[in-house]
């Protein structure tokens, strides 16, 4: 882990812009985050990216905190802090402004159009995240089966995803997932 101003600036630019592009939540920008952090800047390897994704999914709180681990790997503790602030601040400032103005836009046509028009795109981006992470993790057929099983389980039941994570960790720990 090295610390230098250039890397910190890159973290600010990358996550500051991802913050404003993350319509539908952080999971929609995972492919882009992977493109920048792994392919572009080589802050992490594919496997490390897939692993911190797993950690962020299994941890409490907003999953966008995954950026703190990208920052940690890229530039140490300061990097973690800078990446987190860069990821949260722009969207939060925008939401703050929008919260003050929200009532005025209640019936605006552009608001309805934005809401309905972005929804299908968000669906496509979520499914893209699934594929990109799977490729990053270099999954074998048993991991694909586990992914398929958890997807179906989480779609058709209301089981707490945390239990599914723990179960999958145990299955992995037994050496059953390659």
């Amino acid at each position, binding site marked *: 882990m090295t610390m230098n101003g250039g890397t910190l600036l890159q973290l600010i630019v990358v996550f500051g812009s991802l913050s404003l592009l993350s319509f539908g939540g952080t999971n929609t920008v995972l492919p882009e985050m992977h493109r920048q952090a792994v392919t572009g800047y080589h802050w992490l390897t594919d496997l490390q990216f897939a692993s911190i994704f797993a950690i962020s999914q299994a941890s409490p709180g907003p999953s966008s905190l995954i950026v703190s681990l990208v920052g940690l790997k890229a530039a140490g503790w300061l990097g973690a802090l800078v990446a987190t602030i860069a990821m949260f601040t722009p969207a939060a400032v925008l939401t703050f402004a929008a919260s003050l103005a929200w009532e005025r836009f209640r019936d605006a046509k552009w608001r309805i159009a934005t809401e309905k*028009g972005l929804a299908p795109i968000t669906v496509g981006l979520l499914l*893209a995240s699934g*594929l990109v992470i799977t490729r990053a993790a270099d999954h074998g057929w048993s991991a694909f089966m586990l992914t398929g099983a958890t*997807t179906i389980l989480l779609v058709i039941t209301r089981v707490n995803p945390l239990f599914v*994570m723990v179960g999958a960790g145990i299955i992995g720990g037994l050496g059953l997932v390659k």
Partner: protein
Amino acid sequence: MSKAALDRKQPAVTHRDLALCFLKIALVSFGGGLSAWARQVLVEERQWLTDEEFLTALTLARLLPGPNVTNLAVYVGTRFHGLSGAGAALAGLTLVPLAIMLSLGVIYFHYHHLPGFQSVLTGVVAAGVGLTLSMGVKAGLDILRQPMAVALAVAAFVGMAILRWPLWLVLVGLAPIGMAWYWPRERKNQEEEP
């Protein structure tokens, strides 16, 4: 803050209440189901928002970029105490989870060479992908009811996952098409506020 929101009887909510409330939401909801838990805590337990107010807040949170629950925290914080309230809610939501995430990350970066550790994570990665896919599938079952919606979703998927275009390009290319398609064409009678 709107006049309507100010006119309504506001529960007494301190900055500390805001921080603790969103800390609770963060801690109980991990693994997902955040909006369900947020509703449970904000509407049922604390009664800070009515059901309708909560849905409005959630729509706003979903519409804007950023994690939904983060945006929800900023909205609720702003509603009660403006900028400082937003800060308190956001701090409550993120600081403890950040400490947990960094601890797990440090453990990971130090011990990931241990074979057992990586095996466990491989399982968790597979389930984590499943969680993300299930969100996409559930939202898709709700939303993808027209050919145009399906086309937009497929185009976003192909652009991002197959062609690996930058996200801004995918959004700049598709969002205007989606917005134009769903632009309300006839004015429906809006429900009057009670």
